[in-house]
């Protein structure tokens, strides 16, 4: 069941369209994240869930990602990520564990990502893959933050056009 409230990181662009061309550009960047060769969409979704867990954002955690093929991320793996247990789960690959560990560190403090954590991603994804992952995490985290602020604004001081 999808109990997510809008906006969330996945449907945020509908709320920002009133900002004009900068919002349109950010929306295109968001779309581009899901069709690139560096990180597969299911793993990117697990990164989104990792950041949502760190933000303790129930709306994000329950949102369905339209960029995933049906069944691309099974419920057991999704639950393990949401519980913060992916690092100990047997059915996560070394690449997935490296990426999710990086996402966790990025979400907690981008300044304090250990060199070995970054190096583990670089070994798995290469230099371009590492840069892409950093970009993607920044976009996802920013959208989670903005969606949360917009939900607060809609609840506390509704303004026509902001939702």
């Amino acid at each position, binding site marked *: 069941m999808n109990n997510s409230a809008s906006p969330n990181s996945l449907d945020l662009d509908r709320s920002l369209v009133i*900002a004009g061309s900068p919002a349109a550009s*950010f929306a*295109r*960047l968001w779309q581009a994240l899901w069709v690139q060769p560096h990180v597969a969409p299911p793993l990117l979704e697990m990164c989104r869930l990792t950041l949502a867990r760190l933000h303790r954002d129930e709306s994000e955690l329950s949102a369905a990602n339209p960029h995933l093929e049906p069944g691309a991320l099974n419920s057991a793996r999704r639950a393990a990520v949401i519980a913060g247990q992916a690092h100990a789960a047997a059915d996560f690959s070394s690449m997935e564990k490296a990426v999710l560990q990086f996402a966790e560190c990025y979400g907690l403090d981008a300044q304090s*990502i250990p060199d070995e954590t970054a190096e583990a991603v670089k070994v798995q994804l290469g230099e371009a893959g590492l840069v*892409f992952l950093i*970009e993607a995490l*920044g976009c996802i985290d920013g959208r989670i933050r903005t969606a949360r602020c917009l939900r607060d604004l809609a609840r506390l001081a509704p303004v026509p056009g902001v939702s």
Partner: protein
Amino acid sequence: MTTRARASAPEQRTGNPIRDSALARVPETVDEIVTLNSAVWKRSLVSPALLEILRLRNARTVNCVFCKSVRYEVARADGLSEARAAMVDAGYEHSALTEREKLAVALADGYLGFPAGITAQLAQRLAHEFSAEQIASMFVALMAFNFTSRTAVSIGGMPEEPLPVVLMALADDD
């Protein structure tokens, strides 16, 4: 913060700071990031001075040494002198910043909080001073500034000590 860069910039220089950074390693996104930066500065629905205040508050919180040292010429021309830029710091509430400028700082702090959030009082003040379109525009700018500064910090290679203030013009293809 790691002072060793985790990814390298391309050897060929273009004059655009984004294209000349490690972001050029990802051709699937770099053009849109350049477009986004340009759109934020040229087509946002709030003034360049307000944008610069959002950017500087973000830079201070993220502790991006490069971002903290930069001042955009377009914001300086819009009236954000160095003395006023220095007010975007602790104690800004009691500074000579205008109400809208103080609200921009508070909005940035709400966005940058962990978790992010807007208080009831701030929501009321924002709704009184800004239109829905302007609030949305400021969030897009914050996302762009936060995304790029955290990318720079994560890639690393920055000095740990503060850099001197440098004025920056929008790049030719911005």
